[in-house]
């Protein structure tokens, strides 16, 4: 293994022109998009610029012989993490804008100075450091990048992998617990609604339709019950209040011989009434 590494190290590996072009196309876009995070007024715009940065990073990973990480970057970061961000943005209000009240005095200027200072220090250190000549991943990626990465993950880092799995399960449970909302009042479902209606003494069934078995089939004519008596509540409440209901008496069935018979109805249709 070390012999192969040494052999690879002796070769002069350089970046291709295509990669250079890709880098110089993507790097300004990424920096501008990242600056959008600082300057964007709306949180959604900031989220979109972060998505731009992350997708560009995926391109750079693929260009740097890490196609597996490039795919994971798109799937995990752009697909899952940023989706989650946008989802939460929708949940807690898109237009939640920044307050301009300074709780710490001159925090804005201190923040700017600290940020610029950090940038100068980082860039200065990175540019002035001496690096070994590039080895390249041609030997390490001999049997495709995902296979080689899998060999490292499930070889040297298998315990870390297990711990990370436990961490993910814990995080999922934690999110469930944190966003769990305790129900303070009992849930009102269909059964509870029906019970309340029975307790209130209202009508359990739908009201009869107007005009049923009456001599006129019209909205303002009350229906007749099985004894031939008109049903007041079958006419729309609005018509009753307005007084536009036709008189009950003129549509009443003719004189009933007895209270148990229904002279106006056929015996067969009595069941349906």
């Amino acid at each position, binding site marked *: 293994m070390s012999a192969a590494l040494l052999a*690879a190290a002796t070769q002069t590996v350089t970046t291709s022109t295509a990669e250079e072009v890709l880098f110089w196309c993507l790097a300004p876009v990424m920096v501008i998009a990242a600056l959008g995070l600082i300057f964007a007024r709306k949180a959604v715009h*900031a989220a979109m610029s972060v998505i731009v940065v992350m997708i560009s990073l995926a391109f750079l990973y693929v260009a740097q012989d890490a196609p597996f990480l490039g795919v994971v970057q798109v799937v995990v970061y752009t697909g899952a993490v940023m989706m989650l*961000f946008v989802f939460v943005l929708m*949940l*807690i209000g898109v237009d939640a804008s*920044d307050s301009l009240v300074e709780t710490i005095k001159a925090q804005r200027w201190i923040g700017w100075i600290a940020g610029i200072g950090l940038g100068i220090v980082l860039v200065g250190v990175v540019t002035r450091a001496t*690096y070994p000549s590039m080895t390249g*991943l041609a030997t390490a990626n001999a049997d495709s990048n995902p296979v080689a990465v899998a060999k490292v*993950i499930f070889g040297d880092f298998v315990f870390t992998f297990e711990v990370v799995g436990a961490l993910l399960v814990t995080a999922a449970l934690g999110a469930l617990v944190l966003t769990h*909302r305790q129900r303070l009042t009992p849930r009102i479902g269909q059964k509870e609604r029906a019970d309340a209606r029975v307790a209130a003494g209202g009508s359990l069934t739908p009201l009869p339709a107007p005009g049923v078995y009456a001599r006129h089939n019209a909205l303002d004519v009350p229906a007749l019950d099985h004894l031939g008596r008109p049903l007041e509540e079958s006419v729309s409440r609005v018509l009753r209040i307005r007084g536009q209901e036709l008189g009950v008496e003129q549509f009443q069935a003719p004189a009933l011989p007895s209270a148990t018979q229904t002279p106006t109805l056929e015996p067969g249709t009595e069941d349906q009434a």
Partner: protein
Amino acid sequence: MSLTNYLVLASVLFTIGATTVLLRRNAIIVFMGVELMLNATNLVLVTFSRMHGNLTGQVMAFFVMVVAAAEVVIGLAIIVSIFRTRRSASVDDVNLLKS
């Protein structure tokens, strides 16, 4: 093109992320700044992995991604629960301990 360009780009991205955390008040945007910093570190890891011809750097970046996913889940859950109780997503409004 030397690989230092990638490192400079990563440094710039990290700086922008850190400045975002320092300057913005919206908790979600602050959180996105943290994510930007993690991404910049990943770029450094991938670049060094290529520089040394060793895939351990890529595996580290992979673990960083997984941990970042877990962190995002918990962080956003905390932000949502704070928003439910305080009706605000600003980091300045969470000041119950300051009396």
